[in-house]
């Protein structure tokens, strides 16, 4: 099945990418946008989704500085 993993900087940890993007927006004519955070998106085919938690902790995310969220197709 197809799985999607969202990896984002942990709360309270510096997110220089998000900050820099946010600061660039007004010059591009965008307003009313805030709390920009930039993370990673991993998508994959997996036979046994039970492995994913472990995979994220050990390989895909850096648990010291990132949180992850596993999304599986409904049903």
């Amino acid at each position: 099945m197809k799985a999607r993993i969202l990896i984002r900087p942990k709360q309270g940890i510096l997110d220089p990418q998000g900050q820099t993007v946010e600061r660039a927006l007004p010059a591009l004519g965008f307003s009313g946008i805030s709390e920009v955070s930039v993370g990673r998106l991993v998508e994959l085919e997996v036979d046994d989704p039970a492995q994913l938690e472990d995979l994220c902790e050990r390989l895909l995310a850096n648990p010291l500085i990132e949180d992850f969220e596993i999304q599986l197709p409904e049903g």
Partner: protein
Amino acid sequence: MRIGVVRFPGSCDEADAIAAASAVAEAELLWHGRTDLDGVDAVVVPGGFSYGDYLRPGAIARYSPVMTAVAAFAADGGPVLGICNGFQVLCEAGLLPGALLPNNSLRFICRQVDLTVERTTTPWTAACEAGEQLSIPSKHANGRWYADDQTLAQIEANGQVVFRYAPGQNPNGSLADIAGVCSEQGNVVGLMPHPEHAVDLLTGSADGLKLFASVLEEGSSVPVS
């Protein structure tokens, strides 16, 4: 002749570009916030990590006010050279074809490479011989030039490939060993390796000087009609 070198927050090679340009002409920095080019005759968009390379290299810098002026200057046929991050900025801005992806190795790689000059009818290669090899350092993490098949075929057909990595020396996985390309008109050139770091034998090579000397050659800065 005056050459302007753009400076973004996070530019790193602008001082070296100024020094290289000064070897052949007058050179001055153009702050990213300005909306004109101070009347310079040629523009270099230098290397570095504009805006930290955050999001994608060049993605934010291409919207600097100065880039609007650079685009207009380029449309008028003015000579523009993008080096490394400058190449990325010009691709993001649509002034050059293709895009620059992370190196295949996913690592930053700094090494001296040989470049083959494929096209000499640009304002930045007029002083080179066709097929000539230049020893120039290359240093980047996102230098894998990419375009879809159709664009690539078109670019090859139009002679828009300006530099290729010498056989076996492609450091990043670029398509067709492409190290540098030019715009359809030929006046905008971008390349990943750093000619401004190859202008003194003391520091390894002076081959890069040819790019800067080219822009002085007669006719090279005249708008291509």
